[in-house]
């Protein structure tokens, strides 16, 4: 187990380094001259040179990348090119919205996807089972933004329980109020991701139905439904865990889009506006935070999967 954790950890660190290098060098290679971008078209040569010196852009690119990485280890992602404020503190503050949003979406997705997936597999020959599967197929194709708009239309017109826009300006000072403004956006992403999870769960349950142990349990007098829930469900859950790592990327993308629609002050919304004003240090920090999140959650999911799946354990453990 320790060897597995170590090797996965090395892969995680490698992933973070490669991701940071890709982000950094792509931005540098494509921009040409950051100082020129900041100075704008009206900037004189002297202004450009001064900006270049003050940002340390006159040194080799590799040294700049090294500096960024060292800063990163100290939790310092540099300063915004537009406002001059610290990138890491802003990203940290915005993560207070994005992380709960992604987490809540995942909870909704699991709560919808797993039970409905099992039910639709058990009732595969009945209309209800087929209907669930068809609806899930359709929901998985819904663009997050449109799904959110439909929820807004429903909740703004008829049922006014949840706010359809914004986030309390004092953040999580009143947890209930903050949580309520995350419900609709999280439901949007959660239903779409849940539809994808439902399809995984359904096919995993269908293959569990074919297994010998389910047939044996059924032969000994258990109903097929009980046999699947008792003996098949652990296997189904394990295969769902193994695809969760890939699903996280979808959650993050969904969060970026619904933050825009529901006007939530998260990392995604900040990224969208920073891309517009070409605040490159912030963009690289935000992109690293989001891809880092995907990599780290993938790492954790792998560990959990390894821990709970007895089949993956090494002999003698």
């Amino acid at each position, binding site marked *: 187990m320790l060897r597995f954790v170590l090797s996965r950890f090395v*892969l995680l660190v*490698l*992933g973070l380094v*490669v*991701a940071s290098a*890709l*982000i950094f060098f*792509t*931005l540098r290679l*494509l*921009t040409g001259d950051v100082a020129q971008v900041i100075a704008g078209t009206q900037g004189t040569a002297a202004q450009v040179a001064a900006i270049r010196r003050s940002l340390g852009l006159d040194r080799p690119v590799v040294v700049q990348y090294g500096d960024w990485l060292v800063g990163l280890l100290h939790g310092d992602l540099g300063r915004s090119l537009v406002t001059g404020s610290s990138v890491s503190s802003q990203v940290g503050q915005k993560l207070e919205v994005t992380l709960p949003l992604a987490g809540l979406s995942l909870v909704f997705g699991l709560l919808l996807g797993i039970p409905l997936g099992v039910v639709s597999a058990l009732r595969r020959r009945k209309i209800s089972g087929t209907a669930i599967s068809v609806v899930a*197929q*359709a929901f*998985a*194709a*819904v*663009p*997050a*933004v*449109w799904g959110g*708009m*439909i929820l*807004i*239309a429903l909740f*703004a*017109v008829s049922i006014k329980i949840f706010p*359809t826009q914004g986030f309390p300006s004092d953040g999580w000072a009143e947890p209930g109020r903050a949580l309520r403004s995350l419900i609709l956006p999280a439901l949007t992403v959660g239903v779409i991701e849940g539809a994808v999870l439902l399809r995984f769960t359904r096919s995993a349950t269908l293959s569990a139905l074919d297994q010998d142990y389910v047939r044996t349990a059924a032969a000994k007098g258990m109903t097929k439904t009980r046999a699947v829930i008792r003996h098949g469900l652990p296997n189904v859950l394990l295969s769902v865990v193994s695809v969760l790592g*890939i699903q996280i*990327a*979808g959650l*993050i*993308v969904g969060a*970026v*889009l619904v933050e*825009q*629609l529901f006007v939530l002050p998260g990392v995604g919304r900040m*990224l*969208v506006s*920073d*891309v*517009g004003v*070409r605040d*490159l240090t912030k*963009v690289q920090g935000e*992109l690293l935070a*989001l*891809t880092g999140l*995907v*990599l780290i959650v*993938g790492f954790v999911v792998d560990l959990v999967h390894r821990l709970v799946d007895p089949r993956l354990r090494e002999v003698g453990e």
Partner: protein
Amino acid sequence: MTWLRELFRRPAGAAASVWLLLLVVSAIVSSFWTPIDPFTTDPYHAWAAPSPKHLFGTDGIGRDIFSYVFAATRTSLLVAVSAGVLASLVGIGLSAFGSLTSRWVRDSIAVLIDILIAFPTILIAMLLASILGGSLFVVVVATGIGYGVNIARVSRAEIRRVRRTDYVLAARASGVGPGGILLRHLLPNVAPTFIVQLSLAMATSILAEAGLSYLGYGASAQTASWGRLLNDLQNYISIHPLSVVWPGLAITLTVLAFNLLGDGLRDATDPRLRVRRRTR
């Protein structure tokens, strides 16, 4: 063309093919003719309800929503096809390169692919857009790379499976070089898996285009795009909810069609499934 017949035998596969064919026709027709020019504004007839003249009604500046949605099929299909082609080139290129070179290079490519998969397509697009500005070109490049590594991963596993088979061993024993094996045995056997991935890549690119155009980093204002229309309409959802239905429905049905086409092609090209059904 047995697989085509197999595809049409399934209701979902047939429906998906018909819808996509309809889109191709719309894309061609709308290049020459739309009922009303999609960009002509008519403030006196803003927010008109659906009628024979305006099938889907009009938006806040009086543009005909049907004509706009109709014209935007071309944008979506263009993005889907170019992203699909680019993703295939990236995917096949990476996995073929990996299978031809030494083990060390192959393993490094594999690790690189595993890392790149964690990069969501939309984030790659935002990375490029922060410098190049948003455009359909950026959407295509981002999906091409983002989904290309997915294709590379899936076809790598498939290539590894085929490589272990006896007929590849036999070919190698009779003196066929690595390039010959790749062309004659590996690629043809990977093709069915690859075609399925291609249609999923197109589904992804439609969603990415819609999302990025919605955010303002995809299609330009002069280009009709379903995602852009969603952005134009978003402030009026609670007052004119019906107008939002059309562009969203177009995106959903198209993504669904590509997904179903992928599923259908997977079943249709799997000879094992075909045999089982005949004997049943």
